[in-house]
């Protein structure tokens, strides 16, 4: 496979765009006309060829642009990368996971040659080639976690398992919706999830945590989560609220199709071998309402989901300030016809 990578931006002039192929493989999250928060965890096994689930770590047409965007964020604010000292084994584990996965899934773009501890890494899309000694930090231009995180899409948090809990002690978060790793570093799983309305009292987090504590090496799991945003801005962290906060009031009934995006996070969890830590990757896919509406059933269903959404959840997902223009834009596309269950496009 030879991949074509978009030249695009996630800030300023916002030239981010999806090809028709990219819209088609969008991980649309709504199976039914009504949405309820749930843990919805499933095995992260290989999905259909071409889908975002085909490989353990997905690379798509946005790869090069997203890595560039990440570099910009890091150059402005390096606290987006947090690595507590006891996580060095986990750093190497993460590097191994990313490099072996990318080179196995996309052999024409990424190559990894392992000779004992001597590793040779080639990343063609980003023009990187390095020889290094696995386990020896001094042979890489920077610490292994940051090195490899600059070469993968999505945000990653690596959790140390101790005291029957999981702690976010290693992470790179440069494209996250509304939270920050600098703020969350060191927090436990439950502290970290505290803001989700109606979830704790459902015992969801107790169950999810218990499940994750028993996550096994070789059997990764995944779930999806969603929100919406105005402008395809990856970096909507709490630190930069002053930059993007006003985006939210700029959506109108007329421009919503191009300006408002459905944003789906594909979250995958991998047990790591040497550190027994758990890597949590949060890969974000964005699609404009106009692109999404190229598949009528997606637009109809989104209309129904948003109309029936509990106000607390709407607020949690940050929709309040632009929900009305979105609904006004979607309404004419929904003829009220019955939609069978399922997330497929047509």
């Amino acid at each position: 496979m030879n991949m074509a990578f978009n030249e695009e931006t996630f800030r300023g002039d916002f030239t981010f765009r999806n090809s028709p192929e990219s819209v088609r493989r969008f991980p649309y999250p709504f199976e039914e006309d009504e949405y309820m928060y749930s843990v919805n965890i499933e095995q992260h096994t290989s999905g259909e060829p071409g889908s975002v689930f085909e490989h353990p770590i997905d690379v798509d047409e946005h790869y090069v642009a997203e890595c560039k965007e990440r570099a910009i964020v890091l150059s402005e604010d390096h606290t987006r990368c947090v690595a507590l000292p006891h996580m060095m084994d986990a750093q190497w584990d993460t590097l191994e996971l990313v490099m072996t996965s990318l080179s196995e899934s996309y052999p024409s773009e990424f190559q990894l040659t392992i000779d004992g501890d001597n590793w040779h890494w080639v990343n063609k899309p980003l023009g990187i080639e390095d020889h290094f000694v696995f386990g020896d930090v001094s042979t890489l231009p920077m610490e292994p976690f940051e090195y490899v995180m600059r070469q993968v899409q999505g945000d990653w948090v690596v959790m140390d398992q101790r005291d029957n809990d999981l702690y976010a002690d290693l992470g790179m978060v440069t494209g996250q919706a509304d939270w920050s790793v600098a703020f969350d570093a060191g927090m436990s799983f439950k502290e970290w999830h505290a803001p989700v309305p109606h979830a704790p009292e459902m015992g969801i987090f107790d169950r999810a945590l218990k499940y994750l504590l028993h996550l096994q090496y070789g059997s990764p799991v995944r779930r999806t989560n969603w929100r919406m945003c105005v402008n395809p801005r990856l970096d909507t962290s709490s630190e930069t609220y002053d930059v993007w906060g006003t985006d939210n009031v700029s959506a109108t009934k007329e421009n919503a199709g191009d300006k408002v995006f459905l944003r789906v996070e594909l979250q995958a969890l991998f047990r790591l071998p040497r550190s027994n830590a758990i890597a949590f990757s949060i890969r974000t896919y964005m699609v404009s309402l106009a692109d999404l509406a190229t598949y009528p059933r997606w637009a109809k269903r989104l209309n129904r989901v948003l109309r029936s959404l509990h106000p607390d959840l709407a607020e949690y997902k940050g929709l309040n300030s632009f929900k009305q223009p979105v609904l006004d834009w979607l309404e004419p596309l929904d003829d009220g016809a019955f939609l069978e269950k399922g997330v497929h496009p047509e």
Partner: protein
Amino acid sequence: MSALKVKVTAVEQVAEQIKHFTMVAEDGSPLPYFSGGSHVVVSMDIDGRTHRNAYSLMGPTNDNSAYQIAVRKQEKSRGGSVFMHEKVEPGTLLEISMPTNLFSIHRLAKKHILVAGGIGITPFLSQITDLNRIGHDYELHYAYRSAEHAAFREEIEKLCGDKAFFYPENETGRLNVTELLSKQPLGSHVYVCGPDPMVNGLELIASELGWPETSVHSEKFLAPASGAPFTVSLLQSNTEVVVPSDLSMLEAMEEAGIDAPYMCRGGACGRCEVEVVECDGELVHHDEYLSDAERVAAKKILPCVSRANCSRMVINL
């Protein structure tokens, strides 16, 4: 659950009743790396019946060419350790689970105190390689009956140098846990693996000395208890399974072709927990996992070790 196919390449008698097994991937590929304290579950075909036992991985964690386990022949074996001792030889093919860690080191500990009794030394042999590599402070205290029972003593001396202390009971008497624990710096963590009385005793002493629960780690692999037969009715699978007296609930369900979850098979991890919908008798819990409140509520059971005094139980599986 993903499994690994391995071939035994060496079997060595290393102490009285203890054999050491080395295995490599059947197809010669590297095995997955693992963290110190991990175990694998070995599946054995005993007279056409699949028997599964968990054993700690004891080799160096930075070597993915082979796995090593050590097995002590149990006097009251349910078949597993006898099978390993009498039937497994170089060339034997086995199926094992992916490594799982329920006994990992605490990476924020100031100092690690490792206390082993007899065959309980095995998980520490891999933990030590991790501790050496990341340069943490530790002490290993190894108690055994007599010199003939001291497996791996030379390796330990090589790996730990002056950090290892040996307690042959017939020469030095018992290891004094109270003395050992009372002189440790704040922020130390203690890890114990060995016979039940040793583990329970250490836990008691640590709590009397005011050690926080989260600083005390233990590993016990409990064998399933036997008892009177009973019938389990599985709600979701819509079947009934008879649990004979010499099989655990989990084993009986597996025999019947039910794909029930498990991880440690020793009542420690909670992975196999199922909801008890109905029981016309009393649950007999043998696990280390459920809280006292959960036991009283009698709504959950860990079928890998626990059973019931009843004629029929309905579970949500």
